């Protein structure tokens, strides 16, 4: 036996190569004894490995033949196992080469795995190698010897006192001489050799490709991800997920304020425009939850004199159109906010301005006239502009007389009047009562039913669209914030629709 002798047990502290060898040897012996214990007693003889010393002299030739056959069978098993393991390694290499950016590391890992696999295969095959008896059984089955050789091998060391064993031995040797055992067990190529060859060629081609290119699968995925089709498919999902996430974060982080929904005395009811404003701007109590930089920005705009604000502070996005139309749009608002309180936000100021504007249509007309006058007067004043007026035009701050402030406040309400049809919309809107919506109505990205709750925005309208609820309101205005709520796959159609509508209205408004 290979590990049959007793071994010296090393001390626990003696950790050396020899000690490790002994540990491995003991583990091997334990596994061997465990396997033997599992075998039934009558099958223990099936796995005997005959050395030929105790066998009859007549069977030495047969044992030599069986030894050669066993080597061939083991060679075939090794080839099969090695080929299958190589196929696994090659498949892994091909996948890694198509995905991974670092091919050198993958190659080193594959080489290590290949060596380990070969070692494991050799160990396993040596561990479960065929015995001479099992080889004889295979030879009987392959040559049709009707278990003559296996019986003779099994009885090779039997004392033939009766003579029938001798007869059986002669019969087995005689029949074995009539067949060609080595021809029955040739060393042949594994069945999966062709597959392995194909994989080798594929990996070779991939390796050559990877010398000058990056991972093809990654490039393909990136190209696919950049395609408009994939983006149109995934962007609504991502957008909706982001909104849900933001809403969830806001619900979790914000403190519940029971007085938030109450309408305080002296405070204006929330108008329909609140539906389209961000949560930070609508609820004054939520100002505490706003980022510090935004609060500072508001404070700068409110506390500092006009024209002396931080030049880096950008105005809110909804104020930019007003600045383009009117050079002093914020003056009236700032004064009004100073009179109401220093803590009121800019959004509330604009809300108040809008409310005043919508409640008094005549003032709108006056403000429109005043705006026209201002526009007419502006070139006249261009030669001698007031100090700081140019800076205020550039920075969006306002500084001027009370008339100008009043005009600016009026012009802020009619900022959308530059668009065609806005005046008509304003008239219609003024004729209707504006019902305040106490609760915030969330506009889902994919819920088109929610669009029936849209109110007419007379301030920043850039286009109009018909809505389902035609009885209450026939048109809705799509601004930049609402476009975010339109799914990406419909934006193109909506844009085309509005362009078509816009061009149609232009053509209809033009005098023939």
């Amino acid at each position, binding site marked *: 036996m290979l590990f049959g002798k007793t071994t010296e047990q090393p001390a626990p502290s003696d950790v050396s190569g020899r000690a490790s060898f002994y540990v491995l040897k003991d583990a091997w012996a334990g596994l061997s004894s465990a396997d033997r214990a599992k075998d039934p007693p009558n099958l223990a003889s099936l796995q005997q490995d005959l050395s030929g010393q105790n066998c009859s002299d007549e069977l030495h030739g047969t044992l030599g033949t069986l030894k050669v056959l066993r080597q061939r069978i083991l060679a075939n098993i090794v080839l099969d196992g090695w080929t299958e393991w190589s196929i696994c390694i090659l498949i892994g290499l091909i996948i890694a080469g198509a995905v991974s950016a670092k091919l050198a590391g993958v190659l080193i890992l594959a080489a290590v795995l290949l060596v380990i696999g070969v070692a494991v295969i050799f160990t396993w095959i040596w561990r479960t190698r065929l015995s001479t008896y099992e080889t004889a059984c295979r030879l009987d089955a392959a040559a049709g010897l009707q*278990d003559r050789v296996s019986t003779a091998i099994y009885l090779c060391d039997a004392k033939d006192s009766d003579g*029938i064993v001798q007869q*059986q031995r002669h019969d087995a040797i005689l029949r074995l001489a009539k067949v060609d055992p080595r021809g029955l067990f040739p060393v042949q190529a594994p069945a999966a050799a062709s597959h392995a060859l194909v994989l080798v060629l594929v990996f070779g081609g991939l390796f050559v490709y990877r010398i000058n290119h990056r991972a093809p699968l990654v490039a393909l995925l990136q190209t696919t991800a950049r395609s408009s089709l994939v983006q149109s498919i995934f962007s609504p999902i991502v957008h909706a997920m982001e909104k849900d996430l933001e809403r969830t974060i806001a619900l979790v982080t914000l403190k519940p304020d029971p007085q938030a929904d109450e309408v305080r005395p002296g405070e204006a009811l929330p108008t329909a425009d609140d539906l389209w404003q961000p949560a930070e701007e609508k609820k004054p109590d939520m100002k505490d939850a706003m980022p510090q930089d935004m609060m500072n920005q508001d404070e700068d705009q409110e506390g500092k004199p006009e024209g002396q604000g931080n030049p880096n502070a950008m105005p809110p996005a909804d104020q930019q159109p007003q600045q383009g139309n009117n050079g002093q749009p914020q003056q009236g608002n700032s004064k009004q906010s100073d009179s109401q309180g220093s803590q009121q936000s800019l959004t509330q100021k604009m809300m108040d301005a809008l409310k005043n504007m919508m409640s008094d249509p005549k003032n709108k007309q006056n403000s429109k006239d005043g705006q026209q006058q201002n526009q007419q007067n502006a070139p006249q004043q261009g030669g001698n502009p007031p100090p700081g007026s140019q800076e205020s035009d550039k920075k969006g701050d306002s500084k001027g007389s009370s008339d100008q402030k009043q005009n600016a406040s009026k012009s802020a309400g009619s900022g959308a009047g530059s668009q065609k049809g806005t005046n008509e919309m304003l008239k219609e809107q003024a004729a209707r009562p504006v019902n305040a919506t106490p609760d915030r109505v969330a506009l889902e990205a994919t819920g088109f039913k929610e669009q029936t709750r849209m109110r007419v925005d007379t301030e920043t309208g850039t286009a109009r669209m018909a809505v389902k609820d035609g009885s209450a309101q026939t048109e809705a205005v799509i601004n930049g914030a609402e476009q975010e709520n339109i799914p990406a796959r419909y934006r193109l159609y909506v844009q085309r629709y509005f362009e078509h509508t816009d061009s149609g209205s232009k053509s209809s408004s033009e005098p023939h």
Partner: protein
Amino acid sequence: MSTSVGTEGQKSNQPLGQQAEFLAEKMGEVRREISKAIVGQGEVVDGVLMALLAGGHVLLEGAPGLGKTMLVRTLAQAVALKYSRIQFTPDLMPADVIGTSMVQEGGDGRHILGFQPGPVFTNLLLADEINRATPKTQSALLEAMQEKQVTVAHTSHQLDEPFFVMATQNPLEMEGTYPLPEAQLDRFLFKLRVPFPGREDLNDILDRTTQGTTVQVRPVVNGPQIMDMRQVVRTVPVAPHVQEYVVKLTLATHPEGRENLLASKYIRYGSSPRGAQTLILGGKVRALLAGRFNVSLEDIRALLLPALRHRIILNFEAQADGRTTDDLLEEIAGKIS
């Protein structure tokens, strides 16, 4: 019974190897002698000879007129053994089979109670249509078949060796019959089905039986030689993997095994250990008759049906599905490597 063979005890001193060769040679001669009277039925003749050499009994099942009784009579002539026949009927009593105690007159004129042996005291017993007798009468053969003795009036009487029972039953006329109990079925080494002869065999039967020619069967072996052959048979070696195959086959017929899905579905009772013994012993005889000195897996597979088909009891589901024991055994054997 005359024994004109003249070889009694001559081969007993020879080595077993030579006796094995002698057995194969003599059985070949017996087969040829039987073939003079029996046309075809080669498998049945081989089964009967194997059972004779293995020391078992044979249950022949076949339609009337297929030569079952003729086979038994011819075999008795070929092996030079005493032969008797019992026609089993519903009114047959056990005493009619094994014998009874009777008041007999001695030589001195006194009357004594003596045992009158029945027809079971013979070497070759033909129990014709055994399933027509009552179970009580059928059971009278149990002790004789297994113990080779009968007990009457608290006295056991040994039967002559070799004792070989060949029973026949008709599978067609089942009304008024008493199917053999499992205990008695298990005592038959083989259950052989006698097939209907083929075209050529039927022509040959007509030629031999309708032209007034008589067939003389020559005795080849005698009782003591058969007993010696039985000893030789038991010396044939069996490789471990062959024996393991027999064990697997036997266990696979039991429905209790978790892996025996087929048996658990269709089989109510599996084979007894006598089935495994039958496979091994029959395999040894078959190997010797084939000129081999070892049992092979092929021998076991060839004897699977005659050795186990009467030891397996199917359940109702198998009968409802039309499954037979032969089908199930072949399917079970196909799943065992």
